[in-house]
């Protein structure tokens, strides 16, 4: 059985992600220690809130180094929403925040008609709609899918980042998470 560690660092909807993976039959732990994050087949970096407090929460628990170590070792990590944004080099949020640097790029304030950008939106190329709720978006060369021109999926080595919330995207989201599990 694939083991999944969800980083619990005070800035994520850990329970929603945990429930989504349990529905898929994965063995899930909410991880607040580097050892738990390093052990799992797949690590999840969820994220809701602001970039600066999320980074502070990771550093306090030593999870920032654990996530870098996973990336260096080529072990699978999935960043969700803010979890994608803080995996980049930096974010414009909170007057400029240094990120984990797992993926080259930066998070910038969204320039959309309505901000926050909230709702279901198709992700290209395949056109499946997922749930988005964000005010910042990634700018990176590692983008592999977009939604209305905004970066929706980032893939760099063993790291995958998604701007949408697969754990809240119904059947389509469950299929996405299942693919992440099968690749881990």
């Amino acid at each position, binding site marked *: 059985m694939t083991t999944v560690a969800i980083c619990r660092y005070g800035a994520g909807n850990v329970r929603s992600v945990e429930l989504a993976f349990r529905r898929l039959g994965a063995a899930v732990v909410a991880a607040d220690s580097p050892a738990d994050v390093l052990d799992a087949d797949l690590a999840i970096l969820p994220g809701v809130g602001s970039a600066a407090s999320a980074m502070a929460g990771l550093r306090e628990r030593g999870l920032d180094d654990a996530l870098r170590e996973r990336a260096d070792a080529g072990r699978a990590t999935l960043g969700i929403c803010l979890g994608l944004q803080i995996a980049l080099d930096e974010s414009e949020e909170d007057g400029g925040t240094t990120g984990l640097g797992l993926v080259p790029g930066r998070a910038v304030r969204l320039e959309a008609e309505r901000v926050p950008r909230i*709702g279901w939106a198709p992700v290209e190329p395949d056109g499946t709609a997922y749930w988005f709720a964000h005010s910042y978006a990634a700018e990176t060369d590692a983008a592999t899918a977009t939604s209305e021109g905004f970066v929706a999926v980032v893939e760099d080595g063993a790291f995958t980042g998604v701007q949408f919330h697969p754990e809240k995207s119904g059947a389509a989201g469950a299929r996405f998470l299942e693919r992440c599990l099968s690749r881990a």
Partner: protein
Amino acid sequence: MPLPRLIPCLDVAGGRVVKGVRFRELRDVGDPVELGAAYSDAGADELVFLDVAATVESRGSAVEVAARVAEHVSIPFTVGGGIRTVADAAAVLEAGADKVSVNSAALARPELIGELARTLGSQAVVVAIDTEAGRVHSHSATRDAERDTVEWARECEAHGAGELLVTSIDRDGTQSGYDLELLGALRDAVSLPVIASGGAGGAEHVAAALEVSQAALLASILHERPSRLVSLRDELRSLGVHLRDAA
């Protein structure tokens, strides 16, 4: 823009879905988890659970409802009613809700909106505005809050609200159509997503609201019947509204 959203609203009291006339004579109409899951299966884009009792005791039950819903429903949902502090809101989100909705507490102390947004992120903060004849009402629409609706909407945005849920009290339950004039004024006044509420009688009303707003809250039009959501979605599609394919 993301796709237009249809959001069934379930009134909850004491952990059960209730129905009543103007918050009186509440009648038990089902379990929030069962009804929520059935709406999700019927193609709801999101769900809203509003605790209409909103007493001190009900805050604990809002967390419990959120926790139970999260186990069985994998689409976003909002919990509102009785949330007065950041701690109240954080507990509901930790249980698995995606957003909280605040109303009277934000009118009493608008700074609450900013406190919630800084801690939880703007995307998790919905300000519910009950309005009649261009004026805001509070306390389940029983008191005039002495504010202009459009002005209050702008203030909510300035404080960091992520969305506005705007209910026209004078249309609520009348099935005579949404207050399109007000919704148009709000579209121009703020750049937040707006959820329209109050007055839906048929698909053409919902379609008209979705022309000016990003989402429509559905309450009495559904009568707690998920099958009505299925037919409504079909009717909206035939009116040219581009809805999510929920399969």
